[in-house]
């Protein structure tokens, strides 16, 4: 059943890769307008596979994904860009393809470049950038689009502390604008501060879900890390 303000509803019966055992099974999640949902799991828990299944990038999937006519932007774990286009060309491309007016696009892109300190390299090719700068390009592209939903896979890898702060502030601002955010990460300190709801994943299955208070109640732990640890431990017993 879809609730009011629900932007994304995913019921994944199973998903994975062809000719291999299924990586995830029975994972249901939803993202509402104006909330940040955190997908939490250890390495190899199946977080990225869930994201791929939600985005339709996985061929072997059983289940249903309802987008509710929402536009979305995806920030992958590994920066993905055109080696042949400059940073500015990427932003202009995003602007034109998403129907953002020329002047507005330039103004918004210029501001984002300024905030992420990339103005001086805007006419450079991103293949020569550091990992953090490439990650910033992905963030800027997503924020430029101002979509209804952000799907973010491990966004903090490679980001310096200033950019991490800037990024989390922007996410909160986007949440306040009414955007829904699905973020998968294992940086639990930051996730605990900014996420409204959590999906705890282990070995491809959903262990627990709910707000931090609900998780604390279910596990009897205090921090998100403790909640996750005790949920994983009790599932392994």
């Amino acid at each position, binding site marked *: 059943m879809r609730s009011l303000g629900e932007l994304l509803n995913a019921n994944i019966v199973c998903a994975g890769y062809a000719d291999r055992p299924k990586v995830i099974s029975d994972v249901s999640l939803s993202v509402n307008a104006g909330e940040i949902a955190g997908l939490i799991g250890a390495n190899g828990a199946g977080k990225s596979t869930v994201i791929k299944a939600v*985005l339709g*990038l996985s061929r072997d999937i059983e289940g249903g994904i309802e987008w509710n006519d929402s*536009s*979305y*932007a*995806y920030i*992958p774990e590994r920066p*993905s*860009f*055109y*080696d*042949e*286009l*400059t940073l*500015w*060309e*990427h932003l*202009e*491309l*995003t602007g*034109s*393809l*998403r*129907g953002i007016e*020329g002047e507005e696009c330039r103004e918004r892109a210029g501001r984002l470049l300024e905030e992420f300190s990339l103005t001086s390299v*805007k*006419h*450079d*090719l991103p*293949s*020569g950038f550091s990992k953090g700068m490439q990650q910033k390009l992905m963030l800027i*592209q997503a924020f430029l*689009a101002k*979509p209804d939903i952000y799907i973010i896979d491990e966004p903090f890898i490679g980001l310096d502390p200033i950019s991490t702060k800037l990024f989390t502030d922007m996410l909160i601002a986007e949440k306040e604008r009414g955007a829904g955010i699905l973020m998968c990460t294992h940086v639990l300190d930051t996730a605990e501060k900014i996420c409204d709801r959590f999906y705890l994943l282990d070995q491809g299955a959903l262990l627990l879900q709910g707000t931090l208070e609900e998780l604390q109640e279910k596990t009897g732990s205090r921090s998100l890390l403790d909640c996750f640890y005790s949920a994983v431990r009790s599932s392994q017993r």
Partner: protein
Amino acid sequence: MTGRALFFQRLFHYWRYQWKVFQTVIDWTVALYIVLPAAAFAVYQYAEWLNGRGLLNGAAGVLGWGWLYVFSALLLCTGFIHTFLLEADHVFLVHAKHLMQKLKRYALLYSMFLSLIKWGALAVLLFPLWRQYGDCTLPAYSGMFCCLFGFHTAILAVHRHRKNSRRTFGNQAAGWLKVMVLMAGAFFMIVFAAEWYWLWPAGCILFICSALLTWKGTETLSAFEEEVLEENRRKLSFAASVLMLSHDVQLPNGKHKGRSKPFLYPRSKHIFTKRSAYTAWKELFFKVLIRNGGYLRQLYLLTAAFTALILVLPLLVKPAVLILFAIVSRYAASLIFDRITDKPVLSGIKRDSDDYFRARNSALTVIQVICSAWCLIAAILSVLYM
């Protein structure tokens, strides 16, 4: 492990990979019924050419001794000095630099040997033409190939130096200038080929100089990343050619970290002044195409193959090849267009829009017209002058 053992191991893996790529196209039935009979026919034809007969003797006579220029140009433009370095060597062999240096030395010798084999094979292949059209003695003929081999190794050495040096415009231009001078030297030598007693020493001196230059380069590992990148590209080049027209398989592109600004359309200049989704799709396609050597190479190989066919085939067949090329070039361009626009960076952007299909159609037509016009010009010139 010794450097020699490592070299033979890498060489084995390299050729096993190429063999597997080959097997994706040609299975044993094709080999048995097409490749082997074709090889047997080629040997028979070669024997016929030696006697001044054979089915393709007439076609060979179209260019006559000019075939030497064509094949020499092709060989001089190809080739590569292997290093057989892998990315993982950085981690595992960093404490054993001498092993990598030895690996590079063996790889250098192997590359030079490969070049020698190529020129030797060309000398054998063109031998019947020399008997019919050549006007020099046999020692001079063989000396010419020795000299061409020397020029080739010198060009390979210059290319290696160019690729390993910093990717500034000056360095690249200087490298290409040296290559052009060497190519001009090689053709000057063919045209004015004289006596064996200066051709042989000239070839040997060129070879020794280039071998010494590249041998010195094997001592340093400062261009490790560039060497690994180039080795990867070479390893994938055959697969890229074979899978050029495949819809499902896309090979990874080597990334040059050193290149910071595009040469064409610098400072993010637009191709189309009007900004819309339609022009954005087209601009994306054309900018990526003209700045990506891999895609350009695919179109170049296709165009070169059809141009050669149009040049040598009889007049009646030329229009059919021209029409076929118009279709194939559009198909190849459509594959490139789909590859360019099917990237995770564009996820969230709908591609099933009117603008997308209009842009695709228009871009493919531009490529088709350019390729067809090129081949039409080649066809007209071949009718007029050949």
